[in-house]
């Protein structure tokens, strides 16, 4: 792999890893606050799985750049994070959290299915590893979406309100990253349009069957992953607080 391809791949891996990490952290905010004990446990598990996926992706990134995954997570400034605003938004109510998880799970599931055939072996192997875990997530969040969408007038309304906010934000997941064409031509990653189409084929009919209306306006707030929502900095401040307090500490 030549240098420009390597840079394109590390850029892409960092973006994917950051999304997993930030969403995992957001979901972990429900620990101790879930609506029922079972959900508290379920969401903690899902967050831990996503954290595991983030670690695998950071390790692939680190193998290319020589960085230390722990340092990337705990000592990187807000401006150099590459997460989407979709995962940065506060956890909101239960409908917001579950809908975001559903949209993300569907995106991750279709992406991993495509990445299993990546020409970059380490990525193909990591995708195969993550895919079965993702099946559990998708089952869980899609069952909740059915419950919320078809439940009561209030649960449907709350989920619809969440969808109105999250649908445009979710589009940012599929904005092609710089120099990604190097990777798509070589079959390292699928083209963003292919990923997005596969996602829409899953989520559009599903949301419709949950009595939810997909908003027509769907422009992401920004196409640039360097531009963050105001919510990322406070999240990182909390997540990095202990590590920054004592950088030499070991477990």
């Amino acid at each position: 792999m030549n240098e420009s391809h390597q840079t394109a791949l590390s850029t892409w891996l960092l973006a994917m890893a950051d999304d997993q990490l930030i969403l995992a952290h957001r979901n972990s905010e429900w620990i101790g606050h879930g609506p029922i004990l079972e959900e508290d446990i379920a969401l903690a598990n899902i967050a831990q799985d996503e954290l595991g996926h983030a670690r695998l992706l950071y390790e692939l990134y680190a193998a290319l750049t020589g960085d230390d995954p722990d340092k990337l997570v705990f000592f990187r400034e807000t401006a150099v994070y590459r997460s989407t605003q979709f995962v940065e938004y506060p956890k909101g109510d239960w409908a917001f959290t579950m809908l975001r998880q559903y949209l993300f799970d569907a995106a991750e599931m279709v992406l991993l299915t495509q990445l299993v055939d990546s020409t970059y072996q380490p990525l193909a192997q990591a995708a195969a590893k993550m895919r079965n875990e993702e099946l559990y997530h998708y089952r869980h969040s899609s069952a909740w979406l059915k419950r919320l969408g078809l439940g009561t007038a209030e649960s449907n309304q709350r989920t619809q309100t969440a969808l109105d906010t999250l649908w445009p934000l979710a589009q940012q997941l599929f904005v092609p990253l710089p120099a990604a064409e190097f990777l798509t031509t070589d079959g390292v990653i699928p083209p963003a349009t292919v990923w997005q189409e596969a996602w829409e084929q899953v989520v559009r009919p599903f949301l419709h069957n949950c009595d939810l209306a997909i908003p027509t306006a769907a422009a992401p707030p920004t196409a640039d992953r360097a531009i963050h929502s105001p919510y990322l900095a406070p999240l990182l401040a909390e997540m990095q607080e202990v590590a920054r307090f004592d950088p030499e500490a070991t477990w």
Partner: protein
Amino acid sequence: MVKMAHIWQALNEVADPEIPVVSLVEMGIVRDVRLDEQANAVTVVITPTFSGCPALHVMRQDIETRLHTLGFSHVTVETTLHPPWSSDWISEEARVKLKTFGLAPPPRHGGRLEVTFFAPTACPYCNSTDTRVKNEFGPTLCRAIYYCHACQQPFEQFKAL
């Protein structure tokens, strides 16, 4: 000279940190052992069960500690993701031990995880299949929570993967 069989035997004594009744070998976590007799070094290849499993570094330490007692000067533990760990690899002996530990063993799926979502799960205490899943997520990443209507006991299942 330490033979390969001794190394595997020693590894079979290294317990799973979260389920101490079974070994890392029985769980299918140890994938390969490479011996370099000249350098008195051994390399063990392991694979994680669930990718977010926090027990991985404990497994690594436990393997190193155990193999150092065999007299190796260098013990290296490598991880691999390929092929991805499958709960189908859990040995028959380990499945019996899981039951005595109160964990229902995972149903076999032959690579199609989806089929396990509809498999009846027998209670590890009374063997009844009159059971119901209460939560597909449990106290660790690899466990789901069930309830047995026959003996009215909650129990956990080692999740299929």
